[in-house]
């Protein structure tokens, strides 16, 4: 839902490795800490379930082999028609949606759908750790044993051969290779002119309005603590954070996981626990299978939304520091530059090295 909180500003390096017993003890202590953290997350999720009220119950139609989509949203009525059709085409079996106090009729729209169950909450997005506690609860309760796709309403998943091979084919392949999670970095799409200038109507493909993206300006580092890659960059880093790159949005995501009730998302869907889930990349020179989340944040509605979010202060760990970021957005900036690339499909993304088949021919 909207902007994702940036990665915590903690140190990314483990303490220098010592030999023998000390090293063993350090590792063990670190592992125990992560374990405790995961248990805390699960406890929070279980506690926060009380904030959710089931308003549209279609859970009976969930089959054992279905892939599930879990979404937490607020005022996304404009995006939802295309969002649902995109994911239905990919073969999502059931949508579990958390509606965080929408006022634009999103809930009613969703309640009319036969494959969508809706929970409603008026509680604070921020104090539910940016909705993650609610998401973790639904995953814990319904996700176990299913391949679960946790996305925002402005994220559209593409992966190798997605137009001919539905999600069950992908997940079967991932399982056969022993991958229990698939990474899909966010690729931010933007219009040619200033933000908010185009016209977008519900149901249209957002790509017609937002066809441009940054092809190759991403910073990638490995964070040993959680064993994940931290990817930043893209148009927002280029335009809004060129002088403070550390605060630029985190783009790595782990949206597709064969869920186990013991798992928990830690920081949006950027990282999850146990930490082994984050190790979805090849380190010996090869490449695993990955997708891309097309981020349609910059549809024309972004201007009003930014003004509203700046007031609500429900995003970011320290919203004050991002006031200027919202101001930047409200001023209808141009993200397009002469080296922008026009989106044509997943094959193009593969050629550019933004996603890879990982041997899935």
């Amino acid at each position, binding site marked *: 839902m909207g902007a994702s909180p940036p990665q915590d500003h903690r140190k990314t390096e483990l303490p220098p490795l010592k030999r023998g017993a000390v090293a063993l003890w350090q590792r063990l202590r670190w592992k125990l800490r992560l374990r405790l953290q995961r248990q805390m997350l699960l406890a929070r999720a279980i506690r926060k379930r009380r904030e959710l009220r089931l308003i549209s119950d279609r859970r009976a139609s969930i089959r054992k082999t279905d892939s599930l989509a879990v979404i937490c949203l607020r005022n996304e009525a404009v995006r939802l028609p295309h969002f649902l059709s995109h994911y239905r085409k990919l073969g999502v079996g059931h949508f579990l949606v958390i509606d965080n106090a929408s006022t634009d009729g999103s809930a009613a729209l969703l309640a009319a759908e036969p494959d969508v169950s809706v929970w409603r909450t008026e509680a604070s997005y921020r104090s539910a750790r940016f909705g993650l506690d609610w998401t973790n609860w639904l995953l814990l309760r319904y996700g176990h044993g299913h391949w679960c796709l946790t996305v925002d309403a402005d994220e559209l998943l593409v992966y190798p051969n997605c137009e001919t091979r539905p999600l069950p084919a992908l997940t079967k*392949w991932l399982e056969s290779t022993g991958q229990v999670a698939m990474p899909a970095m966010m690729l931010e799409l933007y219009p040619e002119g200033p933000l908010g200038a185009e016209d977008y109507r519900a149901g249209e493909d957002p790509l017609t309005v937002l066809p441009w993206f940054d092809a190759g*300006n*991403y910073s990638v580092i490995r964070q040993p603590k959680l064993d994940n890659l931290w990817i930043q960059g893209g148009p927002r880093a280029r335009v809004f954070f060129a002088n403070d790159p550390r605060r630029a949005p985190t783009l790595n995501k782990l949206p597709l996981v064969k869920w186990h009730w013991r798992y928990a998302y830690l920081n949006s869907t950027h990282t999850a626990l146990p930490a082994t889930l984050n190790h979805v990349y090849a380190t010996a*020179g*090869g*490449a695993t299978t990955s997708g891309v989340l097309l981020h349609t944040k910059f549809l024309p509605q972004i201007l009003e939304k930014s003004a509203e979010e700046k007031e609500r202060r429900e995003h970011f760990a320290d919203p004050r520091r991002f006031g200027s970021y919202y101001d930047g957005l409200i001023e209808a900036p141009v993200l397009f530059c002469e080296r922008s690339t026009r989106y044509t499909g997943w094959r193009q993304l593969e050629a550019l090295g933004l996603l890879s088949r990982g041997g899935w021919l």
Partner: protein
Amino acid sequence: MTLGFVMLCHTALDRAAEVARYWASRDCPVVVHVDKRTSGSQVAQMQSDLADLDNVRFSTRHACEWGTWGIVAATQAAASLMLREFPQVRHVYLASGSCLPLRPVEEMRAYLDDRPRTDFIESVTTADVGWTMGGLDYERFTLRFPFSWRKHRWLFDNYVELQRKFRIRRAIPAGIVPHLGSQWWCLTRQTLSAILEGPDRADHDRYFRKVWIPDESYFQTLVRQVSTNVESRSLTLSKFDFQGKPHIFYDDHLQLLKRSDCFVARKIWPRAEKLYASFLSPTAGDEPRAEPNPGKIDRLFAKAVERRTTGRAGLYMQSRFPNGEWAQGRTAAPYSVFEGFADVFENFETWLSKVSGSRVHGHLFSPERVEFAGGVSVYNGAMSDSAALRDYNPRSFLTNLIWNTRGERQCFQFGPSDNQKIAGFIAADPNAQISVISGAFAVPLFQSNRNFSEIRAEAARLQRIESDLLAELRGPHVKAKVRIWTLAEFIESPMEPLQSIVDEISPRSLRRLAEVPRMVDLTGFGQFLQNLRNQGMQPVLMGDFPAGQDYPNAAGRRPRPYLVK
């Protein structure tokens, strides 16, 4: 005379039934074996689906766990039933429930009619197979495998190790020469019945029951004893991924499968509607076909496996992040780094880009901004010229630049006043060609209009930074191609170094440089260095400059600009 199909099925029985119907209704008897672990209701459904066909039989069900005897037992039972029930069958084709015929049965029958005595079965001696995964080939026949590979991997592996360690072996029965090959074969009645009805069958079965993955060795080995005409290849197109698991074909493989000209392919994704509709349609295979040739698509699959295991050099992304030690392929393509050249020559960048046909940037790691070629503010891939963005992750910056400009050689200037964090990475990169004129940083200082105390401090700072860099470039871990000259050496004879650098950048245009860049006026530079010395600094990196006023240029030993005869 006709052809019979034995089908081993375990899931997606509706698809298997579709294929069985296709064959049976074209006068090819089918014997279906369904895994014992498949639920009874599904089997009943399949049986009722095929009830109207009088040439379809269901054989005794065995549990078929991968790698175990069950699959062979199932094959034996089904093949025996086929030979008994359908005397008109001459060739028996072993297929699976996820197989799909790619060419009409009539063509296949005609093909086999031309080769009535030929057994099509891949059968290779263990010494010659290259495809076994996990290193078990000959040992499949000599070790014991009481533990399930799927369920008890640890026990399986360790029991193998134990037997290796203590050299415990099973004896191979006399007359058996182990052969391996694809499980999917097409054998003649004579050969198949000789195997199934042979006097030694009980002995063979007892032995193979404990061989690892007997479905890839039982028929493959025994066929060598009874057949006189083995054609060692499978008529079934089957490809394997990087883990040795069969590749699955989807709708988007339609053209690929058509091009393969094979008779049967596996495995097919059960929901590949387009593939089933297209290959099972009555009009399928109207186009003229050639000899089966799976080799046509081998290259494609080999490439996919390579992408998985070695990936694309120089690419760092969400699913590929090679370890730091991975020196090969740090960057995507060769590039050149020049230190000091832009200080010594007035128009080095334009000159270099002209003679070498490569892209020449300014100081990419300059502290103010990234000096992309042409002074643009965004470069390929929407890379920003913000120094802060670059310095946030200099490695990603460089690897991105080289990746984004694949196909065009990149050159850039580097110097002691630039951000040095990237130096170690470049030095250890085999793709880098680094050329350094040491001490050249003094030339702009020499030309500058600053107070001498400032110049002296700055010269000392830059010299310290450049010394560190040179130490790094002379270190033991350097993989880059490094050339270092002192300023004095270089201006003594600048042509040779330039020629060799340009030759290396653009090897195709091997010719003498017709035009050289214009060197800055160094009259008085020797005295300048002497002044630095007199002020207490020790300029060492520039090499040996005489202190007198008359160093080369003043003496007029060389006309300027330098021109080659």
